[in-house]
């Protein structure tokens, strides 16, 4: 059994891939990696294609990270998904976009390609789609008294589009099958050939609720590729924005989950806190969601003294109001009756799928990209990564509550230690092609960005992997055996991104 280091040494190392190594391996080493993944020794961080090659980012048990690549000139490669199911949808997506055939993949249905593009394999051969796409075949659910409930893509609430096919026995969900891809915008296609600023803007529009985390991941990948470093003040301001984003989303989610259990009081109060965070963000950085505020090389705006005051007032208000809401959640039996024991995700599945964020942490997986691999300034900040074992909706609420408290503390620490200095050191264009990768922690979990820059500094290939890729399939598992009426509650407690997943 090779270690990740040994496996990486067996292949041909790729020059100018930073900060972690990338190696082109042969099929035997590729399959060995599949074995380590299916044995649970390693974690799949991402799998993506390009014309003629497939790549996989891996995390070993000691925190080591590496990218292995397999050339597939004939457009075929041994499927990882056949041995390690978390890769299934990633391989289906890579096949739709690049025409790469995963040999042995048990699910041969398209994923992102719904037959409406007029093209097949739009990021590689771009052949014209001559025949209409065959209708999508959902997995069968057979048995006495089973019925199906199709939901979506247009849902009843103000949420993103996706299709859910429930097979139910009476009120009990026997199977949920998701069909996604409705909001596929072709972001990775638009990235190709874009300059760094346009690419950063696109990255920040991958999933609107995580615009800071995506812009940060893209900026860090671009800086890694070009060997640049953002100035210290910029790094601290980035963390400030990231924690504000986390706080706003967690407040919103805690309220919205309670709202889906018809407890609107929490929703109203959490909505006020969320709005306060967004207004403070607007006052500090000129945009409520802090979009386009992080750029490769630094940040676009400075934090003025008035912003510091706004943030201190925000922290004071949250500290005054949030504990009463936490207590309200904790002491309302009718609400807990809905959340405790509902939508349980097992620790084994959370681990196998490398579930990030509150989904993983509520089921005992405490991975946090701010810790592993870690990035500044978090190495000098004190914070806990709360983790629980129950795996139910209640646990996912509590993880959010504890993380919101941690974010408040982080905001205080950042304001206290914020260094002075320049805001941006624009990356110098590379003289030859180079590659970079970054992992950042969004409120939802770890976002991965892999980037290859051409010699002229434009983007040759960029892959953005949302944490939702590994969380969506787990929602199918968590809802099993629950009643249909609890689906909105479970779904909101996961709060996966459709846009981040569909790209």
């Amino acid at each position: 059994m090779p270690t990740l280091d040994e496996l990486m040494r067996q292949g041909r190392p790729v020059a100018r891939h930073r900060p972690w190594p990338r190696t082109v391996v042969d099929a035997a080493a590729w399959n060995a990696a599949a074995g380590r993944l299916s044995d649970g020794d390693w974690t799949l961080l991402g799998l993506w294609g390009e014309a003629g090659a497939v790549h996989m980012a891996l995390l070993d048990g000691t925190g080591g990270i590496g990218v292995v690549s397999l050339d597939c000139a004939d457009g075929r490669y041994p499927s990882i998904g056949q041995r390690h199911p978390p890769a299934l949808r990633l391989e289906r997506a890579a096949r739709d976009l690049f025409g790469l055939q995963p040999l042995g993949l048990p699910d041969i249905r398209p994923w992102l390609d719904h037959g409406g593009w007029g093209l097949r394999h739009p990021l590689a051969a771009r052949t014209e789609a001559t025949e209409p796409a065959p209708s999508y075949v959902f997995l069968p659910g057979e048995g006495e008294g089973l019925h199906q409930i199709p939901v979506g893509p247009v849902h009843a609430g103000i949420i993103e589009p996706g299709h859910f096919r429930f097979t139910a026995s009476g009120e009990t969900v026997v199977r949920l099958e998701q069909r996604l891809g409705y909001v596929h915008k072709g972001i990775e296609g638009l990235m190709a050939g874009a300059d760094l600023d346009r690419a950063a803007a696109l990255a920040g529009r991958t999933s609107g609720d995580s615009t800071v985390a995506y812009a940060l991941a893209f900026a860090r990948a671009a800086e890694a590729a070009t060997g640049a470093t953002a100035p210290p003040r910029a790094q601290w301001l980035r963390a400030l924005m990231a924690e504000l984003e986390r706080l706003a989303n967690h407040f919103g989610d805690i309220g919205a989950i309670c709202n889906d259990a018809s407890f609107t009081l929490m929703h109203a109060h959490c909505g006020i806190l969320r709005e306060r965070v967004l207004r403070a963000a607007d006052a500090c950085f000129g945009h409520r969601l802090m979009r386009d505020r992080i750029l490769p090389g630094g940040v676009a705006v400075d934090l003025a003294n008035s912003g510091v005051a706004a943030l201190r007032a925000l922290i004071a208000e949250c500290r005054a109001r949030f504990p009463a809401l936490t207590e309200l959640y904790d002491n309302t039996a009718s609400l807990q009756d809905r959340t405790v024991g509902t939508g349980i995700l097992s620790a084994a599945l959370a681990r196998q799928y490398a579930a990030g964020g509150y989904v993983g942490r509520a089921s005992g997986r405490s991975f946090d990209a701010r810790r592993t691999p870690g990035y500044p300034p978090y190495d000098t900040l004190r914070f806990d990564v709360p983790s629980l074992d129950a795996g139910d909706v209640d646990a996912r609420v509590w993880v959010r509550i504890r993380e919101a408290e941690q974010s408040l503390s982080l905001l205080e620490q950042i304001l206290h230690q914020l260094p002075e200095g320049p805001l941006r050191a624009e990356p110098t264009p590379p003289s030859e092609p180079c590659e970079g990768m970054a992992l950042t922690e969004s409120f939802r979990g770890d976002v991965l960005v892999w980037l290859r820059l051409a010699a002229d500094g434009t983007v040759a290939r960029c892959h953005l992997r949302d944490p939702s890729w590994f969380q969506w399939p787990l929602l199918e598992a968590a809802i099993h055996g629950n009643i249909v009426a609890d689906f909105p509650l479970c779904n909101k407690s996961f709060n996966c991104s459709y846009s981040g997943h569909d790209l």
Partner: protein
Amino acid sequence: MRKLLFSGMFRAPVTEPRPPTDDAALRELAQAVDRSARRRLGHSLSIREVDAGSCNGCELEIHALNNAFYDLERFGIRFVASPRHADVLLVTGPVTANMRDALERTFQATPDPKWVVAVGDCAVDGGCFAGSYAVVGGVARVVPVDLHIRGCPPNPNALLQGLLALLDRVGEGGRSA
């Protein structure tokens, strides 16, 4: 819970006064709303939100309209769960190829009279997603649009101004468009 409810009774509400109606929106709407429709609807609008490929940023701000600061329902504007109950479709996103069909069908399922409000820069012409193989490029390419509310995303005040302009147009029974 009692304590929280009690304290709420003595605090001033956070709800803010309505913003002034957006003039540009009024001009665009002058064409859209005829007198008979105004009479029929009175002072209320039911909105069905349709995400046709947004990044979900617009959805966050549309959600914010329901919080205590903006309290959309005090104006008689509310979100409904089905296009069959809606007067207005609030459409976000550049319209992806994969959502085109669903948007058309949602429009067809909405009874007349109906209006379409396109929300966000990418809903105007595809925005930064224009030119992609996967994007139709603007809501107006698929269904007729009566009002555009720009922004990336538009903040709740901008959304409110646009919707109030629509409501004013719909509600002004006496003046011709």
